[in-house]
Every structure is written in structure tokens, then in C-alpha cells.
């Protein structure tokens, strides 16, 4: 134990000596390098001072901020005090500022009971009531202003409804009678626009032009939204000038004079190359008219059906101005004669889309069923019924076709009755007189037969051979009605 204690003391003495040696060493160095060490010490002291200053500055800043923190603390304390006061003092009504807020409707309810009751009866503002009165007054004024238009309104509304539903002719007739009597400063522009469109569809292009000149001033026609009406004026001019030029060329054909077919056709073709005169005031002749009148000449010259059809197809192809009125009905009738059912259907739909009241469309479609190898009178009657429904009141142009259908069905009495009604309301023509006579012959009615024969003879015509042959039992009714010559 003592030996251990002695060892420990020795170890302690050695470590102390070592420490003393270590402590002496800088002193030796200091003595050796005294000026450099002093310099280092002063630098260190300076750095320490800087650090101390910096810390002092931070400390000062922190000390300066203390009032802000203090303020926050003060505020929260004040809030606490205010809450405490609120707990004790009652909340006042936001409306009157005098009474205590009611707590029946929630803790934070802002109004007192008295104000709440009053606010339920918040007075109505005058602005709403005044505006209602003004509205009623203006409404009465507009109604009063409209009264003077009552008669025009009825006419135009009726015409507009008819026109809008595709009954173009009925609408146009009503519009026409209205526009011819209406004063320009009170006129319905809807009527003007519709009738102009209708004129375009039905080919009354010059009537359209004169109406445009009546309603629109030159300045108005220069406006972009009135461009289509300005175009109608131009088109009208072109079509009129072209028609006059073409008429000069085809005059011998139209008036049954002698003519050279090739020369006439060449004359029409030459119009493509001809520049209109300055007097005419147009840039070129209308190609659609030139081609259409080529068809007219072909038709008069009895060119093959296929060639005529081809010509009308060409006309249809070059039509870029909605000028179906010029040729489509003829095209459909020609297609019916040729027996091309698909083409008839297509053209029939197009015609009715433009004008549901186009009697030519129904006539062409019924003729197609008549001239089938095996005629279909039931289909003919269907088409006639459709025509009866859609054609304007008084238009009985479907009746002869209906009579033919009855004859083909073997219903002679119905055929004669139909023709009786038709002849009572229409002007006599060669075709209708022949048909009436045929119906009379079918029913053995000599009186009507003789009357028709006499009427035709007195007018410089003769009863058709077909009718006479049928009367003499030389032809059947089917054979007579299958004829496409146009006498019946």
C-alpha cells in the first residue's frame, strides 16, 4: 500500500516537472523572438477588442428591441383587460349604437331587438318602384305606337309565316300586295328582305331590282351588310342584257321561222367571246343564260332526249348564283320523260326545298310514274294529294294529272268529275280539252266529247288523233296515256 502511494507521488512529481518544462519553452522562444511576438499579441488584442465591440453592439441592439417586445406584451395585456371589460360591459347595437345587442340570435348578433324589428320593415326604395312605373309607361308607349301598324302587322306576319314554312308563292303574293301599298317610312324590312329573296328564288329579278332601288339609297347600298342587294342590281343588269342579246339570236326559233340550227348554236357560243357594248354597261354576258338557251334551241329542234339532258346537266353545273328558277323544273320534267327515277327524286327534292308550292315539281314527279313501263297510278295519286296539300289555295294545276291517274286506275267517273271541276275553274287549253274529251269518251259522255271537239275546231285546232282512236276502240287507254307527245 505504501509502495503504491510512493509510486503515485513519483509519477505526480514527474508530470509536474514535464509541465514546468513545457511552460518554460515559450519563454525561451519569447526571449529569442521578442519583437515578433509583441506584434502578434497586439494584433490578437485588437481582434479581441473588435469582437468585444461587435458583441457589445449586438447586445445594445437587442436591448433597444426590448421596447417593441414590451409593446407587444403591453398590447396583449391591454386586450386581456379589454376582454375583461367587455365581459363586464354590454355590446351596443351596430344600428342604433344605444341599445344592447340581442343574444337571442347568437352571441355575436350585432343588432338590438328594437332595431331588428325595424329592419324587418326596412322602407322600400323609390328607385325600384319608379323604374317599374317607367317600364310600364314605355311599354304602353310602344304598344300605342304598334297599334298604327296593326293592319300591316297581320299581313306581314301571315306572309312571313307562310314564306318561312316554305310556301314561297303564298308568302310572295301577300308580301307583294303589302309592299305595293305600304309607305316607305313605315315599311317592314322583313317583308322587303323576304320578297327580295323570293324574287331571287322564283326569277323575278327585275322586280327585285326595282324594289331595291325604291327602298335603299345609294349610300345604304355601299354598306358591306347591304352588299347582296347591290349584287342583285348588278345581276339584274347582266341577266337583262344577256336575255336581250340571246333573244335576238334565237328569235327565228321562237317565232317558228326558218332557221339554221348550227348557225343559231354558233351565234350563242359566240356570246362567250363577245364583249358587251358600252351602252349595255356590263362586263360579260351571263354564261348560264347562254347555256340554258342552247337547251331551249335543242328542245325546239327536237334533239335527242339524252343530249338535252346533258345540256341541262351542264347548266346545273355552272350555276353559281342560285338560279335554279331558270332551268330546274325543265330538268326535272326531262328526267321524268327519260325514266331516270333517281334523278327525278333528286331534282324533285331540290325544287321543293326552294319552293314547296312549285306545281312543276309535282307535275314532273307524277309524270315519271305515268310514263313507267307499267304505270303506277297509285303513286301518281299520292303525288297529287301532296300537291293538293302544299299548293296555294286556288292552284288546281295537279287536277289533270289526277284525272289521268284515275283513268289509269280504271276509275272513269272520278276522272270525269275531276276534269269537270278543273275545266270550270281554268282557261281551256288544247291539252286540257283533249283530256276532257278523253274522260268523256271513257265514260260514254257524248255531250262533253262533242263540246270539246267543237271548241277545238272553232279555235283552229283539232281533237287529238289519240282521243279519236280511243273513241273508235283502236287504242287502249294505257296506250293513249303512254304517249309523250304532249297532246294530253
Amino acid at each position, binding site marked *: 500500500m505504501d509502495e503504491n502511494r510512493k509510486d503515485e507521488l513519483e509519477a505526480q512529481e514527474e508530470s509536474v516537472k514535464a509541465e514546468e518544462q513545457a511552460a518554460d519553452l515559450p519563454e525561451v522562444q519569447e526571449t529569442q523572438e521578442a519583437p515578433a511576438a509583441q506584434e502578434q499579441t497586439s494584433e490578437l488584442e485588437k481582434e479581441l477588442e473588435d469582437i468585444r465591440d461587435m458583441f457589445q453592439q449586438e447586445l445594445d441592439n437587442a436591448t433597444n428591441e426590448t421596447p417593441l417586445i414590451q409593446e407587444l406584451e403591453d398590447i396583449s395585456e391591454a386586450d386581456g383587460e379589454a376582454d375583461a371589460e367587455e365581459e363586464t360591459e354590454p355590446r351596443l347595437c351596430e344600428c342604433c349604437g344605444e341599445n344592447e345587442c340581442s343574444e337571442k340570435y347568437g352571441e355575436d348578433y350585432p*343588432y338590438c331587438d328594437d332595431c*331588428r324589428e325595424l*329592419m*324587418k*320593415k*326596412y*322602407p*322600400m*326604395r323609390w*328607385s*325600384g*318602384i319608379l*323604374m*317599374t312605373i*317607367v*317600364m310600364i309607361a*314605355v*311599354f304602353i*308607349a*310602344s*304598344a*300605342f*305606337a*304598334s297599334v298604327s*301598324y296593326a293592319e*300591316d*302587322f297581320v299581313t*306581314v*306576319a301571315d306572309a*312571313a309565316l307562310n314564306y318561312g314554312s316554305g310556301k314561297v308563292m303564298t308568302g310572295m303574293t301577300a308580301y307583294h300586295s303589302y309592299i305595293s301599298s305600304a309607305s*316607305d*317610312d*313605315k*315599311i*317592314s*324590312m*322583313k*317583308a322587303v*328582305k323576304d320578297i327580295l329573296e323570293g324574287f331571287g328564288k322564283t326569277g323575278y329579278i327585275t322586280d327585285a331590282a326595282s324594289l331595291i332601288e325604291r327602298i335603299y339609297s345609294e349610300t345604304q347600298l355601299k354598306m358591306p351588310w347591304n352588299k347582296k342587294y347591290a349584287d342583285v342590281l348588278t345581276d339584274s343588269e347582266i341577266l337583262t342584257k344577256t336575255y336581250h342579246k340571246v333573244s335576238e339570236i334565237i328569235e327565228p326559233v321562237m317565232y317558228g321561222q326558218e332557221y339554221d340550227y348550227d348557225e343559231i348554236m354558233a351565234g350563242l357560243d359566240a356570246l362567250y367571246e363577245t364583249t358587251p357594248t358600252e351602252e349595255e354597261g356590263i362586263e360579260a354576258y351571263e354564261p348560264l343564260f347562254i347555256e340554258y338557251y342552247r337547251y331551249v334551241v335543242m328542245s325546239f329542234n327536237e334533239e335527242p332526249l339524252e343530249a338535252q339532258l346533258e345540256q341541262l346537266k351542264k347548266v346545273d353545273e355552272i350555276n353559281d348564283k342560285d338560279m335554279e328558277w331558270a332551268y330546274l323544273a325543265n330538268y326535272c320534267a326531262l328526267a321524268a320523260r327519260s325514266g331516270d327515277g333517281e334523278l327525278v327524286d333528286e331534282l324533285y327534292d331540290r325544287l321543293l326545298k326552294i319552293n314547296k308550292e312549285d306545281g312543276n315539281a309535282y307535275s314532273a314527279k307524277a309524270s315519271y310514274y305515268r310514263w313507267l313501263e307499267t304505270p303506277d297510278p297509285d303513286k301518281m295519286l299520292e303525288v297529287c294529294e301532296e300537291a293538293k296539300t302544299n299548293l296555294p289555295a286556288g292552284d288546281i294545276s295537279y287536277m289533270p294529272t289526277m284525272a289521268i291517274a284515275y283513268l289509269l286506275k280504271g276509275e272513269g267517273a272520278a276522272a270525269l268529275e275531276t276534269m269537270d271541276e278543273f275545266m270550270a275553274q281554268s282557261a281551256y287549253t288544247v291539252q286540257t280539252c283533249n283530256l276532257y274529251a278523253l274522260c268523256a269518251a271513257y265514260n260514254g259522255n257524248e255531250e262533253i266529247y262533242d263540246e270539246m271537239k267543237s271548241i277545238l275546231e272553232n279555235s283552229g285546232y283539232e281533237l287529238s288523233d289519240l282521243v279519236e282512236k280511243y273513241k273508235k276502240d283502236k287504242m287502249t287507254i294505257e296506250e293513249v296515256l303512254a304517249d309523250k307527245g304532249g297532246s294530253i
Partner: protein
Amino acid sequence: MTGLYIFLKYLTAPGALVRGMWEQRVCRSSKVVVEDNRYLRRDEMASHIEHELMPTARSAFAMCFVPFFFNMLGAFIFGLIPAVMLLFLQFRGAFLGITCAVSYWFAVSLFCNAFPLIEDAMNMVDKVYHQGNILQKILYAPGVAITYVGAYLEKYSVTFLAALVISIMIAV
């Protein structure tokens, strides 16, 4: 979007004033507190009055449907003559033109302010379908559907656009 909404409310001020008037009328009938009865404010409350929420299914429905119904009825009545005479048949004439044009503006403004505030519409749905009886749920259903959808359409100014489209369709 709010700017456009407020602009259109001012453009259709007559209808906004009438709408506000009907809302206040319903509040008075239902004995509901009205906090601000300015009909045309320069914020999202334009054409609506500030009021406490309607307490019952019936009053909540009335708050949305009554102003809607009367504004729509007014729009139809005031708009019928100008729509036919001015837009459809397009009659010329200074007196007719002016009176019909103003009347049509009234009609459009009533149409554009027919629908309720979305908050009122939501309160209506909540009250009718959580507090209303079965009869109310059935009877009010069409009105609830129309006014609820309409409230959103009006918020995004679709009603004004619709009025323009309808006008163009009549005129063309």
C-alpha cells in the same frame, strides 16, 4: 370576372333595380331582417339586397323564385312587342323604333337580372331539401332547379350572352 359582372349589372340597371325591389318585398313579407337595401351596389351584391338568411323552406324558395318569376314575366311582356315589331318584322318608324328599343332594353335587363344570388340559391336548396316537407320538395323542384342553375349562369354573365344570342336569332 367581377368587373364584367358589375359592368353588366349597371348596363342592365333597370332590371337590377326591379330585382332588388322584389327581393326586398319578399324579405318584408317573410319578416326577414334587411341589412342593406341598396339595389345597385358596386360589388357582387349588385341587383341584390343584403339580408339575413331566409329561415324556412317556403321563404327561401320565395326569395329565389318570386323575383325570378316576375322579372321573367316582365321580360316576356316588355320584350314581346319590340321582338316582333322591331326585331322580327323590322318595321320602320321613329316613334315605334325608339319606344320599342327602350322597351326591349328593359326586357333584356329584366331577363339578365332574373336569377338569385348564389348564396340565396344554396340556402334555398339547403332549406327545401333539409327542412322542407315532401310536398315542398316535389312542388318546388322545377323552380329550385331553374333558379339554382340560373344563379351560376348569371354570376358568369351567361344570361346576358343568351339575351344577345336570342335577339340575333329573332332578327336574322
